[in-house]
């Protein structure tokens, strides 16, 4: 019996991942050892920028700029750089700006995209085909092409240096409309018909039948949109000027030039900016990875 449980014990923890290379019998093949070493080296290499930034941020400015460079500074590590950046810099304000605008972008995108996707998926109306073609065609438009006229428009709307100026142009996500449409297409019509027999109207069906069934895909789209908005540089960079209105990525860019050669504070700021998403990622790793894999192809 025991010998019949073919898949190696390890495979239980990582289902679907295992391939015949870990067949029993040939226990430790040299190829697997080599592969493990390569992967380990790659993974460690990929962590180096994080590690080096952390080490630098924990040094004093003098030691961060000292040669020869050291891993552990002679006078030990210090949180001075973090403290200084948090106390004197604009990081807390920028974090709030990023959080607020990204949350609103995500919420608006989700609502308008889901409504549109539902119409495209379920309702027959004149002009639908044309709309589909138009929205699909718009996928080809590279956002940088729009920055000049959009900025001009923001000036006319008096939205430069405002939250709405950051938010509104970022809520159009044609790719997400199609991701949602594809999901809605798969929801059995019977469920809606049953609700209709019970007297529910379109809005009610959408709200009480379709949306609850679509939670996983809504979450995936939300994650994807939020990360994109949180990290977007070009548009907030164009539409904001006032130091109090900047988002984190744009604010960091100004720090770089303002602090000049204060390497420890630079790295402390960068790490503080990276922290929120890294924490979110550690908690929702599986959902995020799944979300990226399902929405990703249609995304960027």
């Amino acid at each position: 019996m025991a010998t019949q449980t073919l898949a190696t014990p390890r495979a239980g923890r990582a289902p679907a991942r295992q391939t015949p290379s870990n067949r029993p019998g040939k226990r430790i093949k040299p190829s697997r050892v080599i592969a493990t070493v390569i992967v380990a080296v790659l993974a460690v290499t990929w962590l180096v920028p994080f590690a080096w930034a952390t080490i630098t941020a924990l040094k004093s400015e003098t030691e961060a700029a000292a040669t020869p460079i050291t891993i552990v500074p002679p006078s030990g590590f210090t949180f001075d750089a973090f403290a200084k950046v948090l106390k004197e810099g604009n990081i807390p304000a920028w974090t709030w700006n990023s959080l607020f605008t990204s949350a609103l972008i995500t919420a608006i995108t989700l609502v308008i995209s889901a409504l549109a996707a539902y119409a495209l998926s379920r309702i027959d109306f004149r002009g639908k085909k044309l709309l589909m073609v138009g929205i699909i065609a718009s996928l080809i438009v590279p956002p940088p092409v729009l920055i000049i006229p959009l900025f001009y428009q923001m000036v006319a709307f008096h939205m430069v240096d405002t939250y709405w100026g950051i938010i509104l142009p970022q809520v159009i996500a044609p790719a997400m409309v199609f991701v949602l449409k594809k999901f809605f297409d798969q929801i059995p019509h019977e469920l809606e018909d049953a609700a209709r027999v019970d007297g529910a109207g379109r809005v009610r069906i959408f709200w009480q039948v379709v949306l609850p069934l679509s939670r996983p895909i809504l979450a995936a789209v939300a994650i994807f949109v939020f990360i994109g908005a949180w990290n977007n540089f070009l548009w907030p960079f164009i539409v904001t000027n006032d130091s109090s209105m900047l988002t984190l990525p744009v604010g960091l860019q100004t720090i770089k030039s303002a602090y000049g050669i204060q390497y420890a504070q630079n790295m402390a700021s960068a790490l503080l900016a990276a922290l929120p998403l890294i924490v979110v990622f550690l908690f929702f790793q599986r959902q995020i990875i799944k979300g990226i894999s399902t929405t990703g192809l249609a995304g960027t």
Partner: protein
Amino acid sequence: MSTSITKSATGHAADNTHAVRRKRDALHGWGFMAPFLAFFLLFLIWPLIHGVIMSFTGKSLTGANSAFLGFANYLEALGDADMWHSMGNTLYFTVISTVPLVIVALAMAALANMGLPAQWLWRLSFFAPFLLASTVVSMFFTWMFNPQLGLINDVLGKVGIPPVDWLNNPDVAMWSIVIATLWWTVGFNFLLYVAAMANIPVQHYEAAALDGAGGWRQFFSITLPQLTPTTVMIVILQVLASLKIFDQVYQMTGGGPGGATRTVVQYIFESGFTGYRLGYSSAISYIFFALIVVVSVAQFFVTRTKPTRKRSA
């Protein structure tokens, strides 16, 4: 609550004639579309049209001189050496970034697919950088690329390689940007490959193993061919993403040294916001747009030559 339900139920029963129903569907359809369409028209279609209009004028950020110029902006752009230089830089970056971003992602995914220990750890480390803002990535790498104090030159020095001026040497700077970009975004392609590999039926491998095919053989005869649609998709997405590069370059080198890394998007930005020439900048935008369209159409036809049903995205 319950009364309103019964009311609408009787209402439905009454208007179930064909014409009424079609009218209602039209109302619902456009009603559901309306919020999206409002934003779509206001912040995508209108700027797109307005950009074309501006590109035929001498409009400047100061508001002066918005006279109609015909194709003058386009003709000027086509004769503008800086424009061609930035276009060349963009294509150069696209080529030298797409190749490693696809191959390294594939290698990482193939390794991850072998069922080696500590899966979560390298998945995390390969993918985590993708969650960073471009500015954070640029700061990390600007610091590591620092010629005197940077970690990279320090490590190279220990194995006897002379220091490299990563961001200030015109021959090296673009490659440095590629290194930073690889670190930043390869995790995304990696995830797409991992997802695709998980969908390859295990039976293929079992059959191959019975026939005595080893790991390499299985990779080249099963994994790689099965991944072809994914690879095509990833290459397309990567080329289109690379063509739009701006952030890292602007942040790490500012387009320098001497314009050696300035890309088209940066040139659009600079002629519009530094040079205040919105009209000229729009003209370059549309030349860039034309390039994107040409690449997309070309890729569409390349991928269509094999009439399979992989219209996944």
